[in-house]
């Protein structure tokens, strides 16, 4: 009884007048007998009854309901075709207390927007989705929807929808019921007064769920489109009852007050400047850890290459950081992506006392070749008079060129003795430090704890530095 009374009262969330049709006009822009008007009213009543008007953001979709903002006196946003659940997600993650309603047609939600709705539901976004299923595209003039019935004729199925060509109508309530996160899924019908009363309760429940923070609620509303079904309002309601309901069973699919509360995201909080400085290690302008004495090395291009897992990239990092520490500039550019999965890796490091232009190392002054393929690939590119370190544990051949300097180091063997094959590069770096003026051995010792991310590998890498030093002392390798 109470419903009958409320039916004659305009819900507060509806505007007094709808500006679209001029002053005094209280009718919607929908066609006579259209289900959208009824659905709007039910949603508006629920919002009013729950007293949440000021908290609502109404997401209208593309379809006949694109103008929903004419009617709803609340925050409104008009979304691209099919994207309303993604837009609602964006809003949800910003406004924790908002009541977010996504209102979509069957073309919008079940065709172009299938991905967005499935994933919003799967994340369990705490939003309420009203899905108006009228088995047709209304706004664009009566083309087939994914929910069009088999045998139904539309502008784009003039010979009637056939299973052979278009498949079966899609049941979105059933489809979403296969997901774990949604807390409420129900299909209702606007086929007669009794059903409308039922729909009213369900719609209210779906919003209530959100107010209580339960999670994703979805109501599919079977709704007449007399104009595109090409029949009068009464016949349309009958057609809905007789033809749509058997295909789209009017029932509840899910009703769960869930405690898991998915889709809430991480906690948003305010963070002070000091916390930022602390977390991101932001230093004052003056407190720079680089050494003051700038020395000139010109520009040195270094290429380090080997198997993935030989520590090629991190050796590059150590070298680049050591250079920065010495007050020099440096850049580090790796080979990356699928190429690395093939098992080879290389990195170019440029060290310079002046500003660095191109970060790409095409013609290295120094090459560290950790395996045979790397030497094969880059030997030719080294500049005349350049330096090549050869990991002789793994490379059996000699450098063919005679216009470069070469150093042969059994780096992998030395590193193996230390118990970490990946430290082979560091052995070579320490020899490089001893025989060049670019970086020095103390800098290397200092930088390794900073440059190596895995804490437990620091000491072994420091040992690799010392192993390099003693190898150098022992052999006095001529450079």
């Amino acid at each position: 009884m109470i419903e009958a009374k409320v039916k004659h009262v305009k819900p507060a969330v509806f505007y007094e007048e709808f500006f679209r049709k001029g002053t005094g006009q209280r009718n919607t822009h929908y066609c006579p007998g259209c289900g959208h008007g009824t659905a709007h009213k039910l949603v508006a009543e629920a919002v009013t009854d729950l007293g949440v008007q000021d908290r609502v953001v109404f997401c209208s979709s593309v379809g006949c309901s694109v103008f929903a903002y004419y009617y709803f006196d609340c925050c409104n946003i008009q979304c691209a075709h099919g994207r309303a659940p993604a837009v609602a997600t964006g809003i949800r993650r910003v406004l924790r207390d908002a009541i977010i309603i996504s209102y979509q047609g069957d073309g919008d939600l079940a065709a172009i927007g299938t991905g967005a709705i499935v994933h919003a539901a799967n994340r369990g976004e705490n939003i309420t989705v009203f899905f108006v299923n009228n088995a047709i595209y209304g706004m664009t003039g009566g083309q087939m929807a994914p929910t069009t019935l088999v045998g139904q004729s539309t502008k784009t199925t003039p010979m009637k929808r056939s299973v052979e060509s278009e498949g079966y109508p899609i049941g979105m309530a059933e489809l979403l019921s296969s997901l774990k996160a949604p807390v409420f899924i129900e299909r209702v019908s606007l086929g007669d007064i009794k059903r409308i009363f039922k729909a009213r309760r369900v719609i209210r429940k779906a919003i209530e769920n959100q107010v209580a923070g339960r999670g994703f609620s979805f109501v599919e509303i079977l709704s007449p489109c007399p104009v595109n079904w090409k029949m009068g309002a009464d016949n349309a309601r009958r057609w809905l009852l007789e033809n749509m309901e058997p295909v789209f069973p009017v029932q509840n699919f899910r009703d769960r007050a869930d405690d898991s509360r998915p889709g809430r995201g991480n906690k948003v909080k305010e963070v002070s400047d000091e916390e930022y400085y602390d977390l991101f290690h932001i230093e004052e302008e003056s407190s720079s850890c680089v050494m003051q004495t700038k020395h000139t090395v010109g520009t040195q291009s270094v290429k380090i290459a080997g198997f993935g897992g030989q520590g090629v990239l991190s050796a590059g990092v150590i070298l680049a950081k050591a250079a920065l520490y010495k007050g020099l500039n440096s850049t580090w550019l790796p080979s990356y992506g699928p190429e690395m999965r093939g098992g080879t890796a290389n990195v170019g490091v440029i060290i310079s006392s002046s500003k660095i232009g191109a970060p790409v190392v095409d013609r290295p002054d120094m090459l560290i070749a950790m395996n045979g393929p790397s030497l094969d690939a880059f030997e030719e590119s080294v500049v005349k008079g350049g330096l090549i370190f050869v990991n002789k544990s793994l490379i059996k051949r000699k450098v063919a060129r005679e216009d470069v300097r070469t150093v042969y180091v059994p780096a992998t063997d030395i590193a193996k003795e230390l118990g970490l094959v990946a430290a082979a590069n560091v052995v070579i770096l320490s020899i490089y430090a001893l025989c060049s003026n670019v970086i020095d051995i103390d800098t290397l010792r200092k930088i390794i704890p900073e440059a190596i991310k895995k804490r437990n590998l620091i000491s072994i890498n420091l040992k690799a530095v010392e192993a390099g030093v003693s190898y150098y002392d022992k052999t006095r390798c001529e450079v």
Partner: protein
Amino acid sequence: MYGNEAVVYGALLGGATHFFGYPITPASEISHAAAIYFPQVGKTFLQAESEVEAVNMIYGASAAGARAITASSGPGISLMQEGLSYIACAELPCVIVDVQRAGPGLGNIWPEQGDYNAVVKGGGHGNYKNVVLTPYSAQEMCDFTYEAFEIADRYRIAVFILTDAYIGQMMEPVRLPRDIKRCKRKEWALYADEKSRRNLISTIYMNPQLLAAQNRKLQEKYKQVEEELCAYEEYRTEDAQFIFIAFGICARICYSAVEQLRREDVRIGLFRPKTLFPFPARRLSELGRSVDKMMVVELNNGQMADDIALSVNCEKPVMKYNWMGGIVPSVVEIVGLVKEDICD
């Protein structure tokens, strides 16, 4: 730090509150870093189901007053164009990072600058533009992203950080800004409260007169952006007989080429746009009068060179040096080409 990582620091220090992304090489490190740092400072990171949804999450978050950012590369940027057109019409501020890879199609993951037209000209349907900043170092990846949020809010516009695989993947030292920006309340945004109740974010104007007015408003805004935002850098152009014009990784390579050519007494300089929209046409026109040749170096089919030819009023030749497919020229190669061309 990595250029891609620098973007995330710049974003957070610039007041970013939300990151929505979808992985793609060579931009993925931005998502990786955002997934760590955004929650660390109480901000939101969410991986979307595709770039289509990522950009629409941005649309929603920005409408709700947030400072939102996403990052992608060619194929993903293509998918975002629909959303960007809506964002332009609804005048929602946001930041999009495009770490360009080679195309068309799936192409490959090596650097290219083939997204120039799609990003600088708007890209989606309708009469709109994005502000386009183009960093050439890890430091600028941080700084430009940091500034991008202020620009986006000031003009209610989408700001692109248009960069490339090399700038994103390389590591360089970065000094982080200490003046931390915050996202402030915007009077037009939806806060789901009494005060913002009548606010509407919409892109539909059924009446052509009204849509025309909205279009005019946008064009006015773009004009203002052109007046106020244009930025560029010049290196050794004072006495230059020739100039390179390049952005992103190409500007780095040309910088080295200038150094080398200057050592060989070639009077050449570098002009580097920091903004591609607005395009520094005025200054280029001036330079066009004083130099003999302009050498436009790009990793695409000459997209910026076309703009220069169009917008720069000069009779001097605009030479195009183009590489595509992910090939990046060496300094030596460019120096060689230039030497051939200046002898002509």
